[in-house]
């Protein structure tokens, strides 16, 4: 059991994050080199289905902690359960996708386990028996190679979309071991009162396509054409700090150093000049399209495709074009 690689499956209300499966993909390739299997950790309430999905992506076994006290995410019971299981079974490696939940869960469990956490890895390789992870620091301007020296487990969160998505094998199955949560409900001081979820909007976290607006959209109503294009593409709406600070769009949309760091397949920047702080949040996008009136805007240095022109003409034209092409 000790040489199993553990993968922590991140979920919200039973919906798993895609990066959880990417983590299984990474674990599979590491298990191939280190020996042993991949064990999925599924915590939540009514989440047995996720363990079965984990088998399809390559997990060989799973620990399922299914309990009403885990219905809402709260770090204390999640971290205590992770730490208790790991201190008993002593895995070499625990991998999870980077998210607000996994960051907190791993950080708290690491204190209990006397180890550390490597967050937001974009590459991981095995060298002399130890995992070496590469991660962006200083807002993505620099990279560092990080290791967990002697302490175990080696706990790593991986950046969503940085590792390939494994193929699902519909017929695969595995053994599910059930375990109890480490804390009783009475022992958890934090209580969840409810959620204020902005309905119907795609979050920029983990989005495959992001359409972003900046100072050039000129006001809150300027995000309408941006939203229309995003809708046709099934994309999330992003924004530069200038647009957020001006109050045109709420903060969760902000991409950049003091906002979200994203790595979509396609990033369309409309009316964004490309300040260093913005580039820090989206430079790892596979394809960047810049639409700007100013042909000297720094965003063009990073873009694969550039359009010099008025976003209020180009973006609606693109929306119409994609409506036709995508049959919407």
């Amino acid at each position: 059991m000790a040489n199993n690689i553990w993968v922590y499956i991140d979920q919200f209300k039973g919906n798993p994050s895609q990066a959880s499966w990417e983590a299984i993909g990474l674990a599979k390739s590491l298990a191939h080199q280190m020996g042993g299997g991949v064990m999925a950790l599924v915590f939540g309430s009514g989440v047995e289905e996720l363990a079965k999905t984990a088998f399809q992506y390559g997990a060989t076994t799973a620990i399922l902690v299914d309990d009403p006290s885990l219905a809402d995410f709260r770090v204390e019971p999640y971290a205590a359960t992770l730490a208790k299981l790991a201190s008993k079974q002593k895995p070499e490696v625990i991998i999870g996708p980077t998210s607000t939940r996994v960051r907190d869960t791993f950080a708290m469990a690491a204190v209990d386990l006397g180890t550390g956490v490597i967050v937001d890895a974009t590459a991981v390789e095995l060298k002399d028996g130890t995992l070496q992870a590469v991660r962006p620091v200083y807002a993505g301007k620099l990279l560092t190679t990080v290791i967990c020296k002697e302490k175990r487990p080696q706990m790593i969160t991986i950046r969503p979309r940085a590792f390939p998505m494994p193929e699902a094998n519909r017929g695969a199955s595995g053994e599910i071991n059930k375990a109890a949560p480490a804390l009783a409900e009475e022992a958890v001081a934090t209580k969840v009162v409810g959620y204020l979820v902005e309905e119907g909007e795609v979050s920029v976290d983990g989005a495959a396509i992001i359409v972003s607006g900046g100072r050039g959209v000129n006001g809150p109503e300027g995000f309408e054409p941006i939203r229309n294009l995003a809708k046709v593409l099934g994309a999330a709406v992003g924004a530069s700090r200038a647009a957020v600070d001006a109050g045109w769009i709420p903060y969760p949309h902000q991409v950049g150093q003091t906002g979200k760091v994203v790595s979509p397949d396609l990033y369309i920047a409309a009316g964004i000049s490309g300040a260093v702080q913005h580039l820090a949040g989206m430079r790892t996008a596979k394809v960047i399209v810049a639409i700007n009136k100013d042909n000297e805007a720094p965003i063009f240095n990073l873009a694969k495709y550039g359009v010099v022109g008025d976003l209020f003409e180009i973006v609606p034209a693109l929306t119409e074009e994609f409506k036709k092409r995508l049959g919407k």
Partner: protein
Amino acid sequence: MNIVTCIKQTPDSAAKLQVVDNKVTWGDSPLIVNPWDEYAYEEALLLREKFGGKVVAISLGPESALEALKTCLAVGCDEAYLVSDPTLAGSDASATAYSLAKAVQKVGEVDLVLFGKQAIDGDSGLTATMVARYLGWSLLSYVIKIAEIDPTAKTIKVERMMEEGRQVCTAKLPAVVSVIKGINEPRYPSFMGIRKASKATIPAWSASDLGLEPSKIGSTGSAIAWLDIYPMPVKETRVEMIEGETPQEIAAKLADKLIADKVV
């Protein structure tokens, strides 16, 4: 209400960074208070205005971090302490959190510890969570609104920003809270504040002042090590300009490219 705000000194977010001999340098660009931590001290000051008590700023770092602490005094924090010791060099997030937790305990009666959600240099976002664990207090992370505090009943209600939206939750005090942008508008130091801060002496706490165990701090006490650091490789992208007579023509050409690239 006694509140501790933990702050880190970092290079300016607009600084041009260079790596020389595996060390990061930023020329003559100024060192600043980590931008996320400005939201933490601002929230601490707002809570003091409402409930009374004091705000204590703590920073772990080299002596240069005194400047960042002076900024905290200039905006109105009541006290500031520097945790500084050569044996702390190379501390990872956990060793840093252990040391900060000891510093919070040395302050004495504390109801709330406030952090920015992460520092813009290491970008780990682990320290607040780990401090909460070392102290054995509740953690409320990524908080965008402190909705209620009842200092007598020792309860707190907040809105936390998760990927899917806001989670509203309650917890008991004392607690550790990490905050994000949007919670407030950090104030600027006043002229009088700057004058007062420039004259202040900021006490420094060493590892032995805090009773830190040598085996738990510095590079020897850290599980995590950075082996090297280097600039992000520059992606060789020469921008391809898409031109046309009409927006429709440009849109059609661009759509061709993006479909060929398989990104839509």
